[in-house]
């Protein structure tokens, strides 16, 4: 079971997300307990601060926009999830790299809880790709590498009609990439 896929650019912006099924198993409570266990890291502590403040802001903004197609609660959670995931992988990666010694630049591969597993892949250009799956999945690093080489580079970088800079409000949005990711992930399941 594959839950969701996330891409973060080198400015830490979440530039693409896609979800495949309901993810009732990883709710806010499990995320919070998870945060607490690694929040001693300084950089993660600051990331957490920004998550908290933006959550308050988005909750206020969320109220008037009830008539949008996505339920405001779901939308707000997705934004928060992106920040939580980024914060988690950012500090885990730094920790893993630091403790691995000299050749430790690529040492953070995945982590898992009893509810889900997070697969991580980072490109030399600092693009961070994250896949959330059920905990029993073997490593999907190769899959993330495939998505990067065969879909991201082909349909985003080499796509003349695609912008080259994205942000969380202006994410990657083109049919070739979207359908490509969907087909690839469904092929894995």
């Amino acid at each position, binding site marked *: 079971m594959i839950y969701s896929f996330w891409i973060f650019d080198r400015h830490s912006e979440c530039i693409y997300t896609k979800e495949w099924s309901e993810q009732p198993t990883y709710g806010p409570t499990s995320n919070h307990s998870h945060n607490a266990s690694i929040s001693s890291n300084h950089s993660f502590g600051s990331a957490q601060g920004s998550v908290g403040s933006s959550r308050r802001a988005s909750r206020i903004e969320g109220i008037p926009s009830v008539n949008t197609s996505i339920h405001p609660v779901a939308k707000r959670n997705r934004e928060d999830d992106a920040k939580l995931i980024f914060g988690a992988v950012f500090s885990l990666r730094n920790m893993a790299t630091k403790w691995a010694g000299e050749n430790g630049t690529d040492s953070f591969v995945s982590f898992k809880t009893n509810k889900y597993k997070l697969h991580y892949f980072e490109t030399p250009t600092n693009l961070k790709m994250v896949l959330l799956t059920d905990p029993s999945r073997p490593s999907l690093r190769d899959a993330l590498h495939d998505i990067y080489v065969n879909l991201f580079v082909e349909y985003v970088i080499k796509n003349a009609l695609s*912008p080259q800079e994205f942000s969380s409000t202006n994410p990657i949005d*083109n049919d070739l990439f979207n359908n490509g990711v969907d087909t690839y992930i469904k092929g894995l399941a």
Partner: protein
Amino acid sequence: MVSSTALELLLAEVVPAALRVSQELTEPEEGSKMAPFGYLVDSESHLDNVYFRVEGYGYRVGRGIAESFSNERPHFADTLDMMKFICKDVWLLLYNKQVDHLKTNHRGTFVFVENQFRGCQRMSAKGGQVETMKGATPYLWFPVGVIRGVLAALGIQADVTFETTQLPVVYFNIHVVQ
């Protein structure tokens, strides 16, 4: 000979660059609103100007290609032979593949049928097929210019247009001016 990725990335910038030049010439005071990378040409007023520029770049490239890559081969027997040169040699050079089909009525009209035109294969814009077609159109003027340029270098004057209803299927129509 040419890195196809390098060529592709360069061509991706050709249309926005042409649009910027066109904007700067017509509205110099609005320099701050210039088209960024990956910009879709949507203002009709600049479209003609962009056409002449992009088609012109293609024409220049076509002229050069014809001179650089036809010297190894025997002389051309007829116009059809020249079309075959474009479909095979020139297309291999630019797109790493040959044109899928070459049709002719033997009276000066030729059609290159491309079922998977490499130049548009990876194009996809926000907003789906309609926006993609709109955005891809200026990029197709480049190969149009290339065809016209190669033919011009070989002494043939021709009108070249393209047609597409579903990318990446593209038809290039060539009418030789008698």
